[in-house]
């Protein structure tokens, strides 16, 4: 067979699968978002309603804006915290050696844990009666021990943040260690010989070299934070009230609890837009490195 034909035959199945499992659902969600779609009624989907679901979300739904605010705050806070902690740990672990690379291996473990399971374990640890944190706070900070973590709206939000940051630190740390390994050793040594302080070496040599990797990590984490569902579902199920309801969870609730498929599709599509912007920047980094 000629290469000219073969190369398209080789690509075709993958393109077909991606088209059918990702591109088609995207298009179909967009179409559904323009129809009144009550799943409970047999004549689904019902009348064409144009953009009124979108208008409804923007003007009539405080719950939508609540989930936008929760998702935005959650994304900004988790991206910042995870990146800062991961950077610190990466700098600590980067020099290598037996001890440090052993620790790096262990870091894989939290990341292989499913977010749903992380949710479960944090719910367990933050249990107000017999959780680990309760016991810790009773000893260290008695005032905090009386907090019913998952029943208080403010506290519950921070529990979700802590659980998410905990779950993502290992991955970001490992990526940043990879990035640090590509900073040329000679440049670092030259700077040290010149008598630059540790902080100066970091700011003037390491950080600029690390910026592309740091950017990739931040975009990637932002994408995953925006999508957060599993963790929230198992940890707080969006509550108390809707204090921890992320956009994914809001779509899930409207689509599958209230059976408002048209409206859920519209909100789902509103999620796609920031995702596309982030993906654009991510793709630029991926292709720039080629």
């Amino acid at each position, binding site marked *: 067979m000629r290469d000219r034909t073969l190369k398209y035959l080789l690509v075709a199945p993958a393109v077909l699968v991606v088209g059918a499992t990702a591109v088609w659902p995207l298009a179909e969600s967009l179409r559904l978002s323009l129809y009144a779609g009550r799943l409970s009624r047999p004549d689904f989907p019902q009348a064409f309603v144009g953009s009124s679901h979108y208008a409804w979300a923007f003007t009539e739904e405080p719950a939508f804006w609540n989930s936008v605010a929760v998702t935005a705050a959650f994304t900004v806070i988790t991206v910042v915290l995870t990146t800062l902690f991961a950077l610190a740990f990466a700098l600590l672990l980067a020099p290598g050696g037996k001890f440090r690379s052993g620790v790096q291996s262990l870091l894989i473990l939290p990341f292989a844990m499913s977010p749903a399971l992380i949710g479960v374990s944090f719910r367990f640890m933050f249990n107000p009666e017999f959780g680990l944190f309760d016991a810790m706070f009773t000893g260290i900070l008695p005032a905090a021990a009386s907090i019913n973590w998952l029943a208080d709206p403010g506290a519950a939000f921070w529990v979700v943040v802590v659980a998410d940051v905990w779950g993502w630190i290992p991955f970001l740390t490992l990526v940043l260690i990879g990035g640090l390994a590509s900073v040329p050793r000679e440049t670092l040594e030259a700077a040290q010989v010149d008598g630059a302080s540790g902080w100066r070496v970091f700011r003037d040599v390491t950080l600029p070299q690390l910026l592309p990797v740091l950017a990739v990590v931040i975009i990637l984490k932002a994408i995953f934070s925006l999508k957060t*569902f599993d963790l929230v579902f198992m940890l707080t199920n969006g509550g108390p009230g809707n204090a921890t309801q992320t956009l994914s969870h809001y779509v899930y609730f409207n689509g599958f609890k209230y059976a408002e498929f048209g409206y859920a599709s519209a909100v789902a599509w509103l999620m796609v837009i920031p995702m596309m912007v982030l993906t654009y920047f991510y793709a630029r980094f991926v292709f720039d490195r080629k």
Partner: protein
Amino acid sequence: MNARTRKRVLAVLQNVAILLFIATMLVPIVWIALAAFKQHVDVYQLKLVFTPTLDNFSRVFAAPYFLGDKLINSTIVATITVLIAIPIATGAAYAFSRFRLRGQTLLLVIILATQFVPAVVIVLPFFLMFRDLGLLDTRTGLVIVNLAIVMPFAVWMIKGFIDGIPIDTEEAALVDGSSRLQVIRNIVLPMAAPGLVTAGIFCFIIAWNEFLFALILTSKNAVTLPIGLALFKAEEGDLWNLMAAAGIIIMVPMFVLALIIRRHFVQGMTMGAVR
């Protein structure tokens, strides 16, 4: 304090910080592991010393939880997803790596971008389609949607591995009269094999931990392990020791797999943006 002592103190401080860090990272895992072997009465106390029991494990596999069924579902769904995804992805990855295709960059960007589509967007149309086709609550349905999340990773990851194989041997074989398909079978596949296994393991972990699709698209027969966790949220309160035992069954196999592919983990997750 002279320079040498300062350096030594700094090294000790660093090691202490590293130990504290890794301990924090392992606490929730250890916590689950301890609870899984505790008797019901001990779960509600912060005991580190207790009489271990395997009771929880036998209970989760028995009625009414039947975690064994979920284990079988998870294993079958993840395995078949990988067995379909890896050959298809390998073909595409080879073509992307060795040929110039029309619209190549666009195709690669689309494949990259699909990874970032929220699962909740994908699941809405599939729910309707599966309802019409009778695929709700089937393993077949789960495999189909899992391909959506696994495929982009697989293509990009395997492309990275094939990019790393020198092209000379292939060209020599082609000059000697081998056909392209022979070259792929006899030269490329053996050399790419470790990469294919790595990508396969990687996709297996993703499919195994997948939550949202299984939550929405299964109800009874095709329920997978992560959804099985919700079985232990009982009216009288969460059955923590059983949940922990189920957690162990979910996470320990993934720990083993993750350690096997540890060296390629970062490259896989970032689709080659970071090596």
